[in-house]
Every structure is written in C-alpha cells, then in structure tokens.
C-alpha cells in the first residue's frame, strides 16, 4: 500500500516536472471539444462565410431546384453575411449578422432592392424580430429595442435596453442568439451550450424569455444544446424549435432535431440524452432518456437546422398551409456532407410529423468537397404576398421562392 502510494507520488512529481518543461497543448476550441483520441487529427472543420459577400451573377443560381410550379430567384445580393430575417409592417426586410456587426434594412423599390445598413458596431447581433412597429435586436450580451423603426431607418437612435448581462462569462461557443416574439408578447431567445459537449449552467443550453415591459427573464426550456430558429404553431400556439445535436459522435449520430415545447419547464435532454434515444457516452451514464422530452422529428446528423417558420401565406398550394420550412446550414462534422437546403415538414393536428422532404436544393455540389457547397441557407421568412424569402450568409444573398398555378 505504502509502496503504491510512493510510486504514485513519484509518478505525479515526474508528470508535474514534465508539465513544466512542456506547456500544455492548446486548449480545444468549442467546436473541437469532445473529440475522441482517434479524432484528434480529423480534417473536418467548420466553414466561414465570405464576409464581403459575393455577387449573384458570379454564382450558379440557375442550378437551384424547387418543386414543380415553384420558382426561385435572387431577391437581393449585397447583403453581407445575411443571417436572421424579420419583416416590418411596411414591408421592410431586416437582416442580421453573426460575425460581422451590422443590421441591414432591405427596401423593395419596385423591382430594385435598396440595402441600407441601419445599425453598426453591434456585438454578434444575430437575433432580430419586428413587433408592433419596434425592431428588437439580440446581441450576444443584451437585447435592445428600436421604436418606430420603419420611420427611422436613417436614424434608429441608440436603442433602449430590454435586458443586459446575458453573457456574463463571455462564453466561447454558441454565443449568438435567435430572437422571436411569442404569442404572450414576450421575447424568446436561446443561450447555447458554451462548448460542443459540457455540463451547462442554469442559464446555458436553454430557451429563455423576457418580458420587454419589465425586463424580467424566465427559463422556458432546458436541455437545448443550441437552437437558432423557432416559431409558434398557428394552430396550437405551441413553441416549435430546431436544435443542433452534438458533434464528434460519428457521421450518422446523433440527429439534429425539431422539437415542440407543450408547456414551460420541459427538459430536452442535453447533455445527457441526444435525439431522444441516445445517451451521451460521458454525461449519459446513470441516466435514462425517458426523463426528457423527445423530439418531434429527427432531421439527420449534422444537417444544422437554423431558421424555421410555419407557412401561413396565401401563395403556395393549400397543402402547404401550416407546414414548417426549415433552413439547414449544412454539415461540417461529417465525412460525407448533407443538408445545405431548405426542407418542408408536414405536421398533423397532434404534433406528429407526417412528412419531411427537401424543398430548396442545389447549394451542395460535392459532398466530399472542401468546401462542399457554394451557399448556405440560414433563415426563412414568409412575405406578405406569401412568397418565401431565404437568407444565405455564405454569399450575402436573399432568395425569393414563389408559386404560380
């Protein structure tokens, strides 16, 4: 026993001396964290957008595909790093950034689109929503509001703080937020997991809501690794949201998810249980997936579902009413890439997903390529005329999908 202890002490001293000679290797990045020993040399890596944007005329726009009867066209280019979309009462389309620092307004001038930078120098302003004349912006650390925005596109002012200190730890990963206005007139937003797989704090891996009148924040859903898209069912008024599953558990697992919250306070599994039925190799020990709310649908591994909207427009055929459109940003943590499209999900009255199929495809050109794609859908937006707008941050382009009988 004593000998074992001594041996351990000697080994520890030796290890510590070694540690002093050689500095520890670089800490893993949030996206690298959670790799197995065999994955340390993996060539898989996330893709970055072309932050200056690319002109539509230089891109193979005519290779994009939509179902028969539908048409896809470029609605606006020159909207660098176009991320989340929001629609004003007067038809202004607001567009956000994640890495860059701007919020844009795109104004339709009868066939020509004017792109105006209305907010600058923001801190990862990924989340935007328009409600009752006001534009709300979620930066990584706070939410601000800009009243009567469509009459003040050239001078939106400083903005009023709704809530601050949302990122007290300056978390390294998943710090960008999606923002939406709930039927309860509260602002809903995500706080992602700070790393690929880790034990989150009470604030992290959650969907929160804040009352813009009082600034009071509540935890709405937990165990949500990172959601960058949500909307409320026009039928049940329940919150539906997309979730990115963890990385480095293989090409085909776990699936990214479409979830539905039927009440506040549900736990959706992270970091214990993925895709509703797969325990995490580390955090899932001694747990059961049965204690968590399962997903409404598995969308496929690493497809990266982002923005989603229920279709409530009048333009598309009747069978599209109440369908969900989901923008999939596409896989990087997969040897053979998939996603990079917009999918259509059909839901019945009992929250059951009855069908899921590709709707807009053609961005993915070489599933083994680096990069494998020439564009990446981020968000979808139902326009007043019923057309669907799709943002692409890789190129800074907005596409419009319309239907004609």
């Amino acid at each position: 026993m004593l000998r074992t202890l001594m041996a351990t002490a000697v080994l520890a001293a030796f290890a510590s001396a070694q540690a002093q000679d050689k500095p520890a290797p670089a800490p893993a990045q949030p996206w690298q964290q959670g790799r197995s020993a065999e994955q340390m040399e993996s060539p898989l890596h996330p893709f970055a957008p072309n932050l200056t944007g690319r002109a539509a005329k230089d891109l193979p726009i005519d290779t994009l595909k939509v179902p028969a009867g539908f048409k896809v066209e470029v609605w606006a280019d020159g909207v660098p790093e176009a991320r989340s979309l929001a629609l004003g009462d007067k038809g202004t389309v607001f567009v956000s950034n994640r890495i860059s620092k701007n919020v844009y307004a795109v104004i339709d001038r009868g066939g020509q689109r004017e792109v105006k930078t209305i907010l600058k120098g923001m801190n990862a302003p990924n989340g935007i929503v328009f409600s009752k004349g006001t534009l709300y912006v979620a930066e990584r650390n706070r939410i601000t509001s800009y009243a009567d925005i469509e009459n003040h596109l050239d001078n939106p002012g400083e903005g009023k703080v709704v809530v601050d200190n949302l990122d007290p730890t300056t978390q390294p990963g998943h710090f960008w937020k999606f923002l939406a206005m709930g039927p309860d007139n509260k602002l809903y937003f995500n706080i992602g997991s700070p790393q690929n797989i880790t034990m989150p704090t009470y604030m992290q891996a959650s969907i929160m809501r804040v009352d813009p009148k009082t600034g009071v924040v509540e935890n709405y859903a937990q165990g949500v690794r990172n959601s960058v898209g949500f909307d409320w069912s026009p039928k049940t008024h329940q919150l539906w949201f997309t979730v990115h599953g963890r990385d480095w558990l293989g090409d085909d697992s776990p699936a990214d998810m479409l979830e539905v919250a039927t009440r506040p306070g549900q736990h959706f599994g992270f970091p214990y249980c993925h895709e509703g039925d797969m325990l995490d190799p580390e955090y899932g020990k001694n747990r059961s997936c049965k204690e968590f709310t399962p997903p409404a649908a598995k969308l496929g591994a690493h497809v990266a579902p982002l923005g989603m909207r229920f279709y409530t427009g009048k333009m598309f055929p009747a069978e599209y009413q109440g369908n969900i459109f989901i923008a999939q940003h596409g896989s990087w943590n997969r040897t053979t890439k998939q996603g990079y499209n917009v999918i259509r999900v059909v839901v019945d009255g009992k929250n059951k997903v009855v069908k899921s199929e590709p709707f807009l495809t053609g961005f993915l050109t070489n599933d083994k390529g680096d990069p494998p794609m020439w564009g990446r859908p981020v968000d979808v937006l139902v326009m007043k005329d019923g057309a669907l707008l799709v943002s692409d941050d890789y190129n800074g382009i907005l596409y419009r999908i319309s239907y004609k009988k």
Partner: protein
Amino acid sequence: MSGAKAWLVVAALALAGGAASAADLEAGKRKAALCEACHGPEGNSVIPVNPSIAGQQVQFLSNTMLFFREGNRKDAQMTPIAANLSNADMNDLAAYFSSLKIAPPKHKSSPENAAAGPGLAQKFMCTQCHGPALLGVQHIPRIAGQQFDYVKTQLLGFKAQKRSDIDGNMTSAAQALSEKDIEILADYIAGIGAP
C-alpha cells in the same frame, strides 16, 4: 498633410471610385498598385513586417480586408486604406492577389529550427487548421513561406490576446506557445518553400 500621406489618400479614393460589382481579376489588378507599395511587387513582400499576399487564400484576403475596415483588426497603414474599400473592391483585390505566384522565400531557417518546426506545428495544432503543408484553406491563411517578422509579430499578438481573429481559434492556440516556441515556429514557417 505630408506628401506620402496625400498620395495614399488620392490612391485610396481612386480605388473606391472604380467599383466593380463582382470579383474580377482585371479590376483587381487595376486597383492593386497601392497594395503592392507595401506588400511587394505582385504581392511578394520585401518588407519583413509586411505579409506576402500572393497566392494567399482568396476568402482569407477578402475577409481580412473587411476586418480592417470594420475595426476588428487595426493597423496604422491598413486601417485607413481599408476604410476606402468597398466589398466589391475587396473581392476584386482578393481574386487578383490570390491568383499570383508565390516567390520562393528568401528566409533561410536554421537547421535546428527546420528540424524542430514540423513537430511543433503538429503539437500546437497549426496543421489542424492550416493544413499538413500549412497552405491554408478558405478563410484560413497560407502561412508556409510567410515573412518571418510578420509571423512572429502575429503569434506574439495572439498570445497577448491583442490580435483579433475570426473565431478565437488562434488566440486560444497561441496561449500554449512560449516565446521560444514562437521563435522556432516563425523561423521554420518563413523558410518553407513551394511544396
């Protein structure tokens, strides 16, 4: 205003005027004279602290110019120049310089550092993102054959958490480097010739 400064402003205004709407090699070439004053003829730098930009990854070049204009990166010379560049200018210039041939490096690595470099580049995960031959990919720059002083300055900046990067990867990676590691890596990297 000094003569040189006035010249810079005039040249920068001229750049901003010739806005092409898409990445265009010829347009990039027309706009490139000012860049070549510091980054060397055809983008191969002869000034130790300035990086070569010939043959650099196109996405890295355009993103980097944008970061200078938007204030993520700051430099006494680059900041005012980038301030006058449109996104289209950046795309044209990136396309042009990326298309140029990289001159063989003038830097000669010491034999010890040339021998130790590949191991360190692997150990500190340089090769993880910059690729096995350090040629870069997409938004990650080629560093093989880059100017010694420039590489060293950047690594010291990342280590001091004063040099911004797109996603925090470099700042994080540089924390593990000692000043001696940085010296060895810069000396090794600057001497790497064409693969």
